[in-house]
């Protein structure tokens, strides 16, 4: 906790500014002051308690609210202990740099305005939580969630008013929005509640997003995100950036505070339980927008749009809200429109930007909370006692509930601004301050007086409606039933209302704090001090006019309702719904027209966009100017093979037979391999040949099940379109490659790699790159292989786990594999078996020559694969190639002897090979971290073996061995799934057909 001593007026203490700049600049300057972070702990306490709400409510029932109230109560107590010092000019700051590299810190700051709002949020929060113990029953559905959300909201509100960082402010701002959404939608089974919650969420988040943009623009313009620094040293307001930023910030603030044209969500939010209305939608959350305006006014009130927007919209909202409140018949909605009206008043006051309007605004802020919260709480009590909130039906409550009636009258008197209540002092101050200003302030004053008249009128209407006789003879009367009002209900209510009465004469107690905040503004006109009685000046006369006019309006209220209905514009609700529906319709039509569900259309669109963009870039840049004379071919062999490859590719297109198409595609693959050889890339060629061979085997294994011919192809014009797209993209791809190479001015990087490899005494440059420079890629791609293999297995083995293949003796099957349908007479089986499970094949399907070849080549191929693996540093090879070669050995055994032969050849689970291989590669990589300096760093082990003499094993060989096992696992997996498993499925089908 850092305390910066109080000093003069208007500016923040110089040390603080320097500290803040230093904090922004870089190295940690104040590691928390070495003391407890009390504010942070208080905010965290709210969230911790909120998280504990569920067990607490289960354990204590509704009394859990008393425990939850501890957090805001502690905050309030702490705030009162700081009152004197802060009023004297002290500022408490705390910061926790949680991501210094990104310059993000949780910076909190308590000054006069922050303290005022803290007391408000904490005090009203604690009292409302106490009230909740009386308001809810133990069996209220979703009580735990409600309690937790309400407590978390109190924490977010506290964070919002204490945040000293723009981003942090935004985070807490949106948190309050989300919690408000959850609280309004508390009883989400009702459609009206869901609609209101969504409406509130949409309006406030749209405003909040605009505000975020505005805050970012301000932060960039001022080169600081620290609010205190930003306000002390506002960015120069020339140009358009700052005014636009301010407009955006105001959009956020005004939407949060339900100022016209964003007012509609607040009356809707009355769907929430009454404690929520009292706390969020009267005392705390809606003050968030006012707080933001009040926070920025000292710096920006003089900048163009600020005063214009706040004064105009504030005054208009005050009149519109008050006028509408005269028409409502629901007690809560009367108060809701009254709140809208008062929020307009507050916006005008804090946005006006002079010292005394700020003084009046801050006082009014507190006053409003002190009268509006108890009024809402009274509505909750009335609702509980009678089951109705309709002023036309309520009757006889003044006699039935005298204490409640008295409380309501106290709060109402403060709302109407009667002496000696705090409301009177605040209103006097407002009138005086506005009168002292310029023309705009004077105009606002007249609107405010009219608004006060409306306030008086709807106050009378509220009190008379709630506690007077029923006014409508047609509707059933609602009277109080049940016993006395619970203490938990009336005590917090009365406490708040009494505060409004006591602080009227005691306004002097508030004055130092309010004046401390107002001192940030320039002083205009004669000095004004907060006091209850200023004598009979102009403000008192204006107040009297407002009271008289209000009383007159109350008398003619029934005519007013008729006029109001006649003059009413189409409701904002309908306009909002219309906007929502139009947005959805537009989205539907757009999506429906673009997204037709056809893969070829999507792909074609993507290709068209790609071609168009590339062609446009080509025609603007004209890179062909760089190309020299083209080099057509290296030798005759190359041109011949290239032509053959191209021809095979083209022939692939019209082919109707699947197998023929596969063979042609395989031809292009082998041809590509030959081109690799000619180009001087034996590693690539070796890999290409093994891959191509394996692919063709896999193709054949699957295609034996699919129809022999492709289904009839698309229409002629679609084929032409596809051909055109193909030609365009192919030409572009080839052309771009050619131009990219032609444009190259620097020597190729490969030469350096060759030199490096030669320096290390290794011979195969490509294999070295793969396990060294591209080791990360190699590892990642091995993982992709493993994933693909697992995918194949899971697509074929649908329900069962695929383990190692069953052996012949386990299955007890003989001579039935690949049985042909038509058996042409008995044939003798070969006398001698060359393979372990050769006799499990159907005799018709056996080939002695193939069995002999398989027997002869299997082991040599395996040895060759190991040779390729371990000699990779010197000869073409490496883990991938070696693994594939070993896999081909398995392929040969499978093709010669069927699935039991495969089980004999590889009596392991493919998954085991995959996992072991991946583990070895990753383990070697991590070993590099231990042995060397980095992941995948290679090391060399030297040892002496009896027979071989000096042996040195680089860790990259171990890495490659992992890749080898993995690739072998992939091939085994594919054979097991697409070979053996499909065999089995075919055999079962045959058996079923015969049966």
């Amino acid at each position: 906790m850092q305390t910066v001593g109080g000093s003069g007026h208007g500016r923040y203490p110089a040390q603080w500014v320097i500290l803040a700049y230093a904090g922004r600049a870089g190295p940690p300057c104040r590691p928390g002051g070495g003391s407890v972070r009390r504010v942070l702990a208080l905010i965290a306490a709210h969230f911790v308690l909120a998280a504990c709400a569920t067990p607490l409510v289960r354990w204590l029932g509704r009394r859990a609210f008393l425990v939850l109230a501890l957090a805001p109560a502690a905050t309030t107590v702490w705030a009162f202990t700081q009152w004197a010092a802060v009023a004297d000019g002290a500022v408490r700051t705390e910061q926790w740099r949680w991501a210094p590299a990104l310059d993000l810190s949780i910076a909190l700051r308590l000054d006069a305005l922050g303290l005022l709002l803290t007391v408000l949020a904490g005090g009203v929060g604690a009292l409302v939580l106490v009230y909740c113990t009386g308001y809810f029953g133990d069996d209220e559905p979703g009580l735990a969630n409600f309690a937790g959300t309400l407590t978390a909201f109190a924490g977010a509100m506290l964070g919002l008013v204490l945040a000293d960082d723009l981003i942090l402010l935004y985070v807490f701002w949106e948190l309050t929005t989300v919690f408000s959404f959850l609280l309004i939608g508390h009883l989400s089974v009702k459609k009206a509640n869901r609609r209101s919650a969504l409406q509130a969420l949409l309006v406030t988040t749209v405003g909040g997003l605009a505000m975020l943009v505005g805050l970012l623009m301000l932060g960039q313009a001022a080169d600081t995100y620290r609010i205190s620094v930003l306000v002390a040293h506002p960015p120069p307001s020339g140009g358009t950036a700052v005014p636009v930023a301010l407009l955006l910030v105001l959009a956020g603030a005004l939407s949060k505070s339900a100022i016209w044209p964003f007012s509609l969500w607040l009356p809707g939010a009355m769907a929430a339980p009454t404690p929520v209305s009292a706390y969020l939608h009267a005392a705390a959350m809606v003050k968030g927008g006012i707080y933001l305006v009040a926070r920025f006014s000292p710096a920006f009130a003089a900048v163009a749009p600020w005063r214009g927007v706040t004064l105009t919209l504030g005054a208009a909202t005050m009149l519109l809200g008050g006028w509408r409140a005269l028409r409502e018949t629901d007690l809560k909605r009367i108060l809701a429109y009254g709140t809208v009206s008062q929020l307009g008043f507050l916006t005008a006051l804090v946005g006006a930007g002079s010292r005394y309007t700020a003084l009046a605004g801050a006082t009014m802020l507190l006053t409003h909370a002190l009268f509006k919260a108890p009024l809402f709480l009274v509505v909750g009590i009335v609702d509980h006692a009678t089951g109705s909130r309709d002023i036309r039906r309520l009757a006889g409550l003044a006699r039935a509930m005298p204490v409640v009636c008295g409380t309501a009258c106290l709060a109402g008197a403060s709302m109407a601004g009667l002496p000696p209540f705090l409301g009177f002092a605040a209103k006097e101050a407002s009138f005086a301050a506005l009168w002292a200003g310029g023309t705009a302030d004077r105009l606002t004053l007249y609107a405010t007086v009219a608004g006060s008249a409306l306030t008086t009128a709807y106050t009378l209407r509220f009190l008379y409606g709630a506690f007077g006789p029923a006014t409508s003879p047609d509707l059933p009367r609602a009277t109080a039933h049940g016993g006395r009002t619970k203490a938990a209900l009336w005590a917090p209510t009365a406490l708040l209302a009494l505060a409004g009465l006591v602080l009227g004469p005691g306004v002097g107690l508030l004055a130092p704090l309010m004046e401390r905040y107002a001192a940030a503004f320039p002083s205009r006109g004669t000095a004004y001090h907060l006091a209850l009685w200023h004598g009979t000046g102009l403000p008192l006369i204006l107040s009297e006019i407002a009271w008289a006019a209000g009383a007159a309006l109350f008398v003619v209220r029934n005519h007013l309702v008729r006029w109001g209905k006649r003059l009413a514009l189409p409701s904002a609700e309908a306009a909002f719904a219309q906007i929502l529906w139009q947005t959805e319709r537009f989205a539907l039509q757009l999506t429906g027209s673009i997204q037709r569900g056809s893969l070829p259309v999507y792909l074609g669109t993507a290709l068209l966009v790609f071609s168009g963009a590339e062609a446009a870039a080509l025609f603007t840049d004209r890179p062909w100017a760089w190309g020299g004379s083209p080099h057509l071919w290296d030798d005759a062999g190359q041109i011949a093979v290239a032509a053959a490859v191209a021809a095979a590719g083209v022939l692939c297109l019209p082919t109707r037979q699947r197998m023929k198409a596969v063979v042609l595609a395989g031809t292009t693959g082998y041809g590509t391999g030959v081109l690799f050889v000619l180009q001087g890339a034996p590693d690539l060629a070796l890999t290409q040949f093994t891959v191509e061979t394996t692919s063709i085997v896999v193709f054949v294994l699957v295609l034996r099940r699919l129809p022999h011919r492709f289904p009839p192809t698309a229409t002629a014009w679609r084929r032409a379109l596809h051909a055109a797209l193909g030609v365009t993209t192919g030409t572009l791809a080839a052309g771009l490659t050619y131009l990219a190479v032609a444009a190259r001015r620097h020597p190729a990087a490969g030469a350096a790699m060759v030199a490096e490899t030669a320096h290390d005494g290794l011979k195969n440059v490509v294999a070295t790159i793969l396990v060294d420079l591209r080791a990360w890629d190699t590892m990642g791609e091995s993982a992709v292989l493993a994933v693909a293999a697992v995918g194949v297995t899971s697509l074929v083995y649908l329900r069962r786990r695929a383990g190692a293949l069953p052996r012949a003796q386990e299955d007890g099957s003989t001579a039935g594999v690949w049985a042909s349908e038509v058996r042409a007479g008995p044939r003798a089986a070969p006398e001698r078996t060359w393979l372990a499970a050769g006799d499990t094949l159907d005799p018709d399907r056996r080939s002695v020559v193939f069995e002999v070849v398989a027997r002869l080549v299997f082991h040599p191929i395996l040895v060759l694969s190991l040779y390729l693996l371990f000699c990779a540093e010197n000869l073409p090879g490496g883990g991938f190639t070696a693994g594939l070669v070993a896999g081909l050995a398995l392929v040969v055994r499978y093709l010669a002897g069927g699935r039991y032969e495969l089980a004999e050849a590889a009596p392991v689970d493919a998954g085991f090979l995959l996992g072991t291989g991946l583990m070895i590669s990753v383990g070697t990589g991590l070993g590099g971290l231990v042995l060397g300096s980095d992941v995948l760093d290679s090391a060399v082990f030297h040892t002496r073996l009896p027979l071989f003499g000096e042996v040195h094993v680089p860790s990259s060989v171990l890495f490659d061995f992992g890749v080898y096992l993995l690739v072998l696992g992939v091939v085994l997996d594919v054979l097991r799934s697409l070979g053996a498993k499909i065999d089995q499925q075919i055999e079962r089908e045959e058996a079923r057909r015969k049966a």
Partner: protein
Amino acid sequence: MNATVALIAAGGVLFACGTVLLLARPLTRILLGAVLLGNGVNLLVLATSGRSGKAPLLSPGTDPAAVSDPFPQAMALTAIVITLALTAFLLAMAYRSWQLTGSDDVQDDVEDIRVALRAEHEGTRAELRTVIRADRARQARAEDSEDLDDELWDNVLGADR
């Protein structure tokens, strides 16, 4: 530096053929398209190393300046292996699709079609809604009454005219 036109041209033709096959409906064709496209791209990548040279194997007596550029080769090598994984996976998919639908054609996306239908019928949604509500109300009544079986039979056989 200039790439060899023969390699570039072969790569380009394979790329074009691969693209055309990718635009087809049967999964086997799409897969062959991917294979051709992969071969074409590998050729194009290799073509960036310029003229052909000796294999980058530094046995004694090899002139390091005469070997071909090893970098594009290292880039293309893993791509070749990945193509094998892709082939196996897509073939398994084609097989599964054949098991389920009897063909390996890629069908239009049902959700997307539904969105398009909603957009088309957006103008008549009010009428549709009344129809659906009436239908639901009828069903609710039917569930309350004993005629539930009758209603079900109406669904199967059609109601009496």
